[in-house]
């Protein structure tokens, strides 16, 4: 379980996250939703120690993240940011082998190669594993990056807008894969997501953030609610139930 207690962050005195307290349950998909600039990405970056927090404590399985060794933390929690442009020319397979760095430090052993193969198979990348990343489409590249995170084999996986720039088919493909990771492998996944219908259909828990504050946290059915959503997005969102899924109509 990830526990966040009284975490705050400000850039140049402008507060981005104020006194956020929440806990992220194990073995579930938790989605962070909220308007642009609400602080979702900042919060997820702080949980994964990409940026330092100003105040508060973040505990992963009871341990303070600032006290765990970097290399040990990398075996527990992984993060994938929304923009992944790289200056390095890598093939898909080479990228995925980087996921084993926390374990291998660059010298991959038999076990590491097995994990790489598993990740490739899981994301169905066999056909394109020897292609260079810049030759791939957005969806393929995103799958390659997720495979790298899979090879890292962490219990907690944080993804910052994994559906960015993906079409419906690829987006659903990614969300189904994430669902499988949770259901089959027991991973804990946290995503920042803009499409509230994807959040509604695929996540177990939703955390709603607005203006740097956590407005609401709870099971999906509690948060996908007309009053709650009006509060977050300042617009009337009609919610229809289709095949037991809550679908938001806001177009």
């Amino acid at each position, binding site marked *: 379980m990830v526990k966040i207690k009284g975490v705050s962050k400000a850039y140049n005195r402008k507060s981005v996250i104020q006194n956020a307290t929440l806990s992220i349950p194990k073995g579930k998909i938790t989605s962070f939703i909220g308007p642009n600039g609400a602080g979702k990405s900042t919060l997820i970056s702080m949980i994964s120690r990409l940026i330092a927090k100003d105040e508060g404590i973040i505990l992963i399985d009871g341990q303070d993240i600032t006290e765990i060794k970097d290399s040990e933390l990398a075996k527990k929690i992984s*993060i994938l940011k929304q923009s992944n442009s790289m200056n*390095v*020319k890598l093939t898909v397979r080479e990228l995925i082998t980087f996921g084993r760095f926390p374990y291998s430090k660059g010298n991959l052993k038999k076990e590491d190669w097995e994990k790489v193969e598993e990740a490739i198979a899981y994301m169905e990348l066999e056909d394109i594993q020897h292609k260079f990343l810049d030759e791939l489409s957005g969806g393929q590249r995103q799958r390659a990056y997720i495979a790298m995170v899979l090879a890292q084999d962490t219990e907690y996986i944080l993804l910052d807008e994994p559906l960015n720039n993906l079409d419906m088919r690829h987006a659903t493909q990614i969300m189904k894969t994430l669902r499988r990771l949770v259901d089959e492998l027991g991973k804990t996944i946290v995503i920042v997501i803009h499409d509230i219908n994807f959040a509604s259909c695929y996540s177990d828990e939703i955390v709603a953030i607005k203006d740097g504050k956590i407005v609401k946290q709870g099971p999906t059915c509690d948060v996908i609610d007309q009053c709650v959503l009006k509060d977050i997005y300042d617009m009337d969102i009609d919610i229809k139930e289709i095949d037991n899924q809550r679908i938001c109509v806001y177009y």
Partner: protein
Amino acid sequence: MGYKKKTITLAIVAILLAVLFIFYDLTGNINYILPRRIMKVVAIIITGGAIAFSTTIFMTITNNRILTPSIMGIDQLYVLTQTFIIFLFGSRSLVMMSSTLNYLISIIVMVVFALLFYRLLFRGERNNIYFLLLIGMILGTFFSSFTSFMQVLIDPNEFMIAQDKMFASINNINTDLVYVSIILLTGVVLYFIPYYKYLDVIALGQDHAINLGVPYHYVVKRLLIIVAVLISIATALIGPITFLGLLVVNIAHEFLKTYRHFYLILGSILISVIALLGGEFIVERVFTFQTTLSVIINFVGGIYFIYLLLKENKSW
């Protein structure tokens, strides 16, 4: 041809050039000429190696292929420090103070600057390349203008001595410094070994590196210190050669087409040595000292660079 074979080819070319440089037209007093030539080759290898090594590390840290320590004005700072010592204590101090001590003082100043640069690099949450480039340009110009300002103020006789001491050009190598440099270089390489494994990952970018468990700030700080010492070594031996680092590292990337830093570092060192040895050979034998090495390097490198731009290689 794979990157391993390419690296071996480069090594063979470098060795052949070194042999050619030492033994070409070896007439006259061999006992005098041979040690001098060997010393020259050693100095070229140390300088070329240090420039290529430091630039590769620097480009990986800053995650771009334009910024080099020279463009950031770091070698100009070395010259400034040397001038400042003379300005304060007069050239007699430089003569009296052993060149080794002078060398070490300059290196300490360089390391302090590297640490300041580290603060600059991580000012705010994200490093902005254009901001850094701008600061570097300004600092470089500032350092060189300040150097010439102080040189103007110094007594002309002192200046002559100072200039002679400051720029040990390839044809006037201070043998003491070569030995000190070899010792320093060995130390730097030993210090570098534990951080070597992080370079490939740091090349992926800060976020990926932290995600993969690299103690990022700790490692980058130490790598910058290594860069500062390497630049001091190179500048002390031959003097600033602005574009050499930029050229050789980019050529190594283009030629080897790999992300593995072991080969990138080795490759750029070899290319750098080949460029300097070849350039110096041409200067001495073809142009009979009518031109300087940096002109040759910048000319050939510039042509190659334009070729790269025209080829519009989108992959990098």
